[in-house]
C-alpha cells in the first residue's frame, strides 16, 4: 500500500468541500479519480502534499507508507515532496518559470535533493528529457519556445526525475489537443511501466479511464460515491450517478463499457 486516505474532510469557513473521503492506492496502480468540476478532486489531491491554501482546514489522515502526511512539519513534507510524491498539472503553460530555461529547473530540483555534482545533474536531466522523447537541445530552451505537448512531457520528466513512488496527475491532458494528449499519456504509461510508480490520475475523460486505469473512484459533491476495480465499476455500476456518467459517454463498438471482453479476445 502506497497511499491511504482515511476520512479526509476539507472545509473552508462556510462549508464542507470534501466530506470524509477514504481511498487506497497500491503499488503500480493507475488510480483514476473521476468527477465533475467542483467536486473536490483537485483539493483532495493537493491536501496530500500539504499544498492547500491556508484558509482551508483539513481533517483526517493521509498515510503514505505508514507516515501521516498531514501531521508532518513543513520541513519534513518539503523533503518528501518531489522525491516521494510528485505532481503534474493541467496548465502546461504555467508549469515552468517563464524566464528560466527548461534545464535550469531540472538542475535546481536535483541540487535541492542533494545531487552536488554538476556533471551528474546535467546527465540526469538529459536522461529524463530523453526518457519522454525530448531532444537534448530543449535543455537550453525557454518554456515559451516549446509546444504544449512538449511542455507537458517535460513536466512529466520533471515529476519523474527523482523516481517518486506516487505521481499525482491533475487533468494533465485537458488543455492539450487529442493527439498531443494521447502521446503524453502513452509516455506516462511507458514511464510507469519502467519505474513502477503509482499514479493518482484525476480526470473527467472516460476514454482515458477505459484505456489506462485499473482502479477508479467516482466523486460527487465532495463525496466518493463509488470506488473499486475498473471492470467492476464500468460494467456493473451501482450508484445512480455512475450509471449516468457511463451513459453520457457511449462507446462505438458493441460490448462491455470497460472493454473487458475485447481485452480477453486479444
Amino acid at each position, binding site marked *: 500500500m502506497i497511499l491511504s486516505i482515511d476520512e479526509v474532510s476539507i472545509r473552508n469557513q462556510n462549508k464542507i468541500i470534501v466530506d470524509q473521503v477514504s481511498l487506497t492506492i497500491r503499488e503500480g496502480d493507475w488510480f483514476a479519480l473521476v468527477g465533475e468540476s467542483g467536486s473536490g478532486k483537485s483539493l483532495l489531491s493537493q491536501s496530500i502534499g500539504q499544498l492547500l491554501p491556508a484558509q482551508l482546514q483539513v481533517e483526517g489522515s493521509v498515510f503514505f507508507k505508514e507516515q501521516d502526511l498531514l501531521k508532518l512539519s513543513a520541513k519534513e513534507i518539503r523533503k518528501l515532496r518531489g522525491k516521494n510524491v510528485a505532481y503534474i498539472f493541467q496548465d502546461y503553460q504555467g508549469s515552468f*518559470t517563464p524566464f*528560466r530555461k527548461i534545464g535550469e529547473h531540472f538542475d535546481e*530540483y536535483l541540487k535541492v535533493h542533494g545531487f552536488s555534482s554538476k556533471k551528474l545533474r546535467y546527465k540526469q536531466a538529459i536522461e529524463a528529457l530523453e526518457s519522454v522523447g525530448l531532444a537534448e537541445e530543449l535543455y537550453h530552451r525557454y518554456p515559451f519556445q516549446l509546444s504544449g505537448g512538449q511542455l507537458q512531457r517535460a513536466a512529466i520528466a520533471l515529476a519523474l526525475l527523482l523516481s517518486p513512488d506516487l505521481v499525482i496527475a491533475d487533468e494533465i491532458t485537458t488543455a492539450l489537443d487529442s493527439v498531443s494528449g494521447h502521446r503524453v499519456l502513452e509516455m506516462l504509461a511507458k514511464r510507469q511501466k519502467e519505474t513502477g510508480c503509482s499514479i493518482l490520475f484525476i480526470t473527467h475523460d472516460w476514454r482515458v479511464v477505459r484505456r489506462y486505469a485499473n482502479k477508479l473512484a467516482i466523486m460527487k459533491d465532495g463525496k466518493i460515491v463509488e470506488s473499486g476495480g475498473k471492470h467492476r465499476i464500468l460494467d456493473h455500476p451501482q450508484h445512480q450517478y455512475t450509471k449516468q456518467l457511463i451513459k453520457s459517454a457511449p462507446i462505438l463498438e458493441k460490448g462491455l463499457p470497460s472493454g473487458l471482453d475485447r481485452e480477453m479476445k486479444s
Partner: protein
Amino acid sequence: MNRFAGRLLKNRKQTIQVGIALIFVVMIFIGIFYAFFILKHDPYLTNLSGRLQSMSLQHPLGTDHLGRDVFTRLLLGGQQTIGYSLLALVTAVSIGVPLGIIAGYKGGIVDRLFMRIADGFLAFPDTIVAIVLVGLLGPSISNLILAIILVKWVNYARLVRSTVLSEAQKEYILIARINGLSAGKIMKKHLFPHIVGHVLVLASLDLGKIILLISAFSYIGLGAQPPMPEWGAMLNDSRAYFQSMPELMFYPGLAIVSVVLITNMLGDYFRDRFDVKKEVNQ
C-alpha cells in the same frame, strides 16, 4: 558581441536613445571624476572682486554672485544631487522590495499587517511628509533624504507585492514548492527576477522625480544648505540676478532637465531589455 550589435542596429530609435543616455552618463562620471581629482577652483572660495563674471578661459561658465566658479559648483552640485538621489532610491528599493516579496508570497496576517502600514505611509503625499519632517528635525539634506525614503519605499513594496501576488498563484510556484524548494529560494530565484524589470523602470522614473524633489526643496531652502553646491540651491542663489545674468539660472536648470530626461530614457531601455521574450525573438 555580434548578436548584440545586430540587435542594436535593428532598433534604431532605441539605439539613438540609449546612445545619448550613455554619453550623458559617461559625461557625468567624467565630471564627477574631474570634480574629485582635477578640481581647479575651490567651490566654496568667495571672491567678491571677481563676482558675476561671464565666460572666460579661467572660468568656463563664469562666476556667481560671490565670485565662485560656476562650472566647479555645477559639477559638485551634480555629485550631490545625483549621489543623494541614488542613496535615497537605493535605500527605498532595498527596504520596499524584500518587504513586498514577503508580504505577497506569505499572504495572510503578514500581508494584512503590511498593507495597513503601507496605507498609513501612503496617506501623506511626499511633499507634506518632507515639509513636516524637515520642519521637525530642521532643514538639512539628510532629513530630506530620510523623508524621501519614508515615502518612496511604500511604492516599491506595493508594486512588488501586487506582482508577486499574481505570480505566486501560478503553477510553477506550486511546482517549485512541490519539488522541495524552500520559501527563500522560491522568492529569490522564481519571483525576484520577475520584478526586477518593473522595479528598474519605476526606479529610473523615480530617480528623476527624486532629483526634482531634492532640487525643489533646496530651492525653497529646506534641503541643501548654503554654501553647499546643489542645483536647486544654485537656482535659488541666482534668482536675484535673473535679469542681469540669466545664464546663472540656466546652467543648473539645464543640468536638472537633462539628468531627469536621461533617467527616463534609461527607464525605457531597461524595460525593453528585461523582456526575455523580446530578446529571443529578435
